[in-house]
């Protein structure tokens, strides 16, 4: 199927169907696999299952808030629901989402490598993820926690909820899973690049994953020790964070946000990488400002370490600290804006293919701009005092973490779905699903900005009736969005059975994964593939017969300047 003439790609080493999915079979061929693609697929399935659980919790919260007195839960149950939603979405869905699932699958192929550097470590980090997920579900079954995902002391140390130790242990294990994934990716990108794959020929997704991996390696250990100390505090009453025992609860906040603010960039950077790929490929145009996008990823990673204090403007920091952190916070917006401008410049005069992945990509730019710009409000000291702990904050970080990071994850799933599964989904269904999610998302969170500015506090199980119209709008939006996700799950699963077989290069991407067959063979490449500009689409033409792009020149190595007539 769709054998291309790219040297280095081994579309078939025998029967056509020999790919990573059919290379071997049986339970252990998956459970004990060292193949990065299978590990990536297992990550993808696990993460989507957890996304379903977290999404159900979110929908239940929104339904509960349709009436001022609350519709569904007691107050404590409500607390547990939003805690479960936060913990699952942050630690089990968004943080591992793009890097561990899509990154694991795509990174070595994009790089032209056979696999990641440490095969067993990769599998170990997957099983650490599974362990963490099971512990989280166990906690959920045993009654949950009501601390929120931040585990702030002294509330968490004095909280009566029984599940705190197990959920914090889960987060600790997940943290190390994340560290090992990041470590693996850094070494892979440094050491496993084939000849010709210089740093500036790396696809931008890899730059983004690389920047993410640096954060994962450098920030997550601090979360590790923080959670470890929290466990010790809770079980042995160590007196480190608990003021009753002489500890300092604000120190916990410092430690926590020293990780968790960079963690925001662990979530958004790989999402930006996905978008850089999608925008370029589906605009059929060379990415604008390659180096600026690449360096802005690194800049975001560096700046991300310096701004954690902006979560603590109202926690009793000195005014000087607040001012420094506020100023540094603004500095992060510069590399973020550089990316947005470059994407817009890429789209400008491109030949846009408005398929599902591209719609998610365009939606990302829109949503991320709102999410990013409202972040500036919260970075401003005086405004933040008013908006702290209101729905404005909720709306802001959902625009960034949900509307940007998760929708970019979904965009990536659509973009690489043919590569991962070897099947094409129905584009029109995809567009409908995107429209439902996009409209539902904005319907959910735009009203929350308004509520927040009017003073509706976050995490309240009840509210005064003046906020009800906004809450109802928000809840209706959430339900529309939930239906959109269910529909998306339906047509993606449908495509596995009914979808037409995917060509090697359905979108016309120039990065190396599109040079492999769909799905890729077990070893990716028999020998290191020739590396060209990852955003030069001039040598690819659309072939009606196979429904995908094929190289124009018989010898793709020859530098024939081709007219830019591609684009369908």
């Amino acid at each position, binding site marked *: 199927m769709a054998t291309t003439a790219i040297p280095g790609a081994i579309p078939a080493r025998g029967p056509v169907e020999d790919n990573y999915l059919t290379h071997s079979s049986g339970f252990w061929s998956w459970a004990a696999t060292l193949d990065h693609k299978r590990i990536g697929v297992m990550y993808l399935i696990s993460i989507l299952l957890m996304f379903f659980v977290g999404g159900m919790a979110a929908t239940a919260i929104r339904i509960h808030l349709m009436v001022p007195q609350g519709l569904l839960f007691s107050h404590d149950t409500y607390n547990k629901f939003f805690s479960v939603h936060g913990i699952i979405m942050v630690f089990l869905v968004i943080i591992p989402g793009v890097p561990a699932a899509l990154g694991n699958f795509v990174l070595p192929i994009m790089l032209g*490598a*056979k*696999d990641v*550097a*440490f*095969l067993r*470590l990769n599998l170990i980090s997957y099983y650490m993820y599974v362990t963490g997920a099971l512990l989280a579900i166990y906690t959920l079954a045993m009654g949950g926690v009501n601390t929120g995902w931040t585990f702030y002391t002294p509330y968490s140390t004095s909280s009566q909820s029984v599940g705190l130790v197990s959920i914090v242990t889960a987060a600790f294990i997940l943290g190390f899973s994340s*560290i090992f994934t990041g*470590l*693996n990716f*850094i*070494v*892979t990108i*440094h*050491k*496993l690049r084939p000849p010709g794959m210089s740093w500036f020929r790396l696809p931008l997704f890899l730059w983004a994953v690389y920047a993410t991996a640096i954060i994962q*390696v*450098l*920030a*997550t*250990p*601090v979360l*590790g*020790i*923080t959670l*470890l*100390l929290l466990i*010790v505090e809770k079980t*042995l*009453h*160590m*007196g*480190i964070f*608990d*003021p*009753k*025992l*002489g*500890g*300092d*609860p604000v*120190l916990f906040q410092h*430690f926590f946000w020293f990780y968790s603010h960079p963690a925001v960039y662990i979530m958004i950077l790989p999402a930006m990488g996905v978008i850089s790929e999608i925008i370029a490929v589906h605009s059929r145009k060379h990415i604008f400002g390659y180096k600026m996008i690449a360096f802005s990823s690194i800049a975001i990673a560096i700046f991300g370490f310096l701004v954690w204090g902006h979560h603590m403007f109202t926690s*009793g920091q*000195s005014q000087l600290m607040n001012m420094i952190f506020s100023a540094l916070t603004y500095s992060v917006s510069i590399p973020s804006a550089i990316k947005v401008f470059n994407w817009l410049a890429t789209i400008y005069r491109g030949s846009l293919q408005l398929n599902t992945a591209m719609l998610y990509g365009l939606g990302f730019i829109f949503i991320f701009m709102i999410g990013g710009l409202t972040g500036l409000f919260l970075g401003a000291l005086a405004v933040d005092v008013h908006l702290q702990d209101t729905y404005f904050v909720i709306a802001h970080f959902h625009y960034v973490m949900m509307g940007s990071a998760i929708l970019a994850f979904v965009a990536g799933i659509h973009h690489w779905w043919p590569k991962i599964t070897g099947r094409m989904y129905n584009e029109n269904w995809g567009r409908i699903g995107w429209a439902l999610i996009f409209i539902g998302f904005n319907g959910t969170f735009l009203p929350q900005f308004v509520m927040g500015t009017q003073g509706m506090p976050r995490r309240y199980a009840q509210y005064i009736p003046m906020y009800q119209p906004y809450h109802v709008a928000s809840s209706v939006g959430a339900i529309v969005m939930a239906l959109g996700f269910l529909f998306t799950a339906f047509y993606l699963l449908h495509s596995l059975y009914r979808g037409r077989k995917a060509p090697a290069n359905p979108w016309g991407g120039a990065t190396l994964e599109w040079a492999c067959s769909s799905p890729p063979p077990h*070893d990716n490449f028999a020998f*290191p593939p020739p590396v060209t500009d990852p955003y030069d689409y001039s040598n690819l033409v659309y072939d009606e017969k196979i429904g995908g792009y094929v190289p124009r020149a018989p010898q793709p190595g020859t530098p024939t300047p081709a007219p830019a007539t591609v684009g369908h």
Partner: protein
Amino acid sequence: MATVHPEVHGDADEHGHPPYLHHHFETPVQQFESDKMGMWLFLATEILLFGGLFCFYSVWRHNHPDVFEYAHQFLNKKFGATNTIVLIFSSFTMAWSIRAIQQGKRVLCAVLLVLTLMCAATFMVIKFFEYKAKIEHGLLWGPRYHPHHEGAEGEAAAATTPGGAVQVPMSQPGAAAQQAPGHDLAAAEANKGSVSATSVARQPQIAESTQEDHTSSIPQQEKPAAGENMGAPPTQIDKTTVADTTAKAGGEAKAGENALKTMVKGQVTAAGTQTPAQPLATGSTQLAATVGPPGVLSEPVPPQFTYPSTVKVEPSKIKPAAIPPAGMADGTVKESEFGPEPKNVQTFFAIYFAMTGLHGIHVLIGMIVITIMLVQVLRGKYNAQYWTPVDLTGLYWHIVDLIWIFLFPLLYLIR
């Protein structure tokens, strides 16, 4: 590590690759460099993991230098120094063993690995005795901090502490934490003099170990008082503990406050005169005398308490901008043979146990890994061509060693 791996080893498989080369690497050099970089990155995460603890240490040391200067005296410098030497020596044997395997000297490498293991074991044994001594003297963290140093009551208290300390319920935070010998007496006498018949009935028992359950409920009032001194609002905890105390003493709510007042007075006197540790009976008499008759003590506690000018206490190093939570309030009010005891000494031991405990776990993990290396070396898995795992184990072992080299002066050699 300038040793060059040969491109092709004798036992080549069908690809012409040496047997230790994984299929996704092109050359042994690439594999070696990847492994080494991965290990360095892992070590970076290790440093950051400990970095959180070092950061915690720095913040506390900066805010409460008196706690560190006081509490570090309880650490055994000889044990610490011995352990430092042992670990540095083990790093030397580890490095030498890597050199040996690089030169193909398997027996020498195995011997050196055994030496390294023995050093590690020595370290852990010494650590065990250190911990044992700390536990016996009640020098523990949080509510389990219940020191009893040398002196008249030392042995009796030492015998009862492990059980007693563990039973302190969390509803009485810091109950045991704020104890010191002289202070026990002050509290006991104050309570006896002012409050209740119960304590009078117990008077004969004061000199015995059973005083603990009686006194431990009183001094927690001192914490609220100190919190008010620092300008922090009284917390809910304060109220509950005061009430709790009162209930235990069998008196009225007001009587609890009286006891508090009395206690503070007694302590200040003790500290102000720099009274050295005294035998039990003498101390109690003296302190009881300073307390005065019960009738004087009926006035409520003044919220703005300041130390008399006679008290030779280092003023708090806390800047006004960073008002600490009530429990963190600082001030020297207690006395032991090691000098006036500042508040929240238990936090030093929390740091001590957290840092050395995490380090000890790393030593144990290192011992396991070195054992695996030893077995593999004896099996002949490593040779002059392929010794990467031994090398990486050495890197890990050096970082464990290095962390101890920082821990030793930071914890043992303060001043």
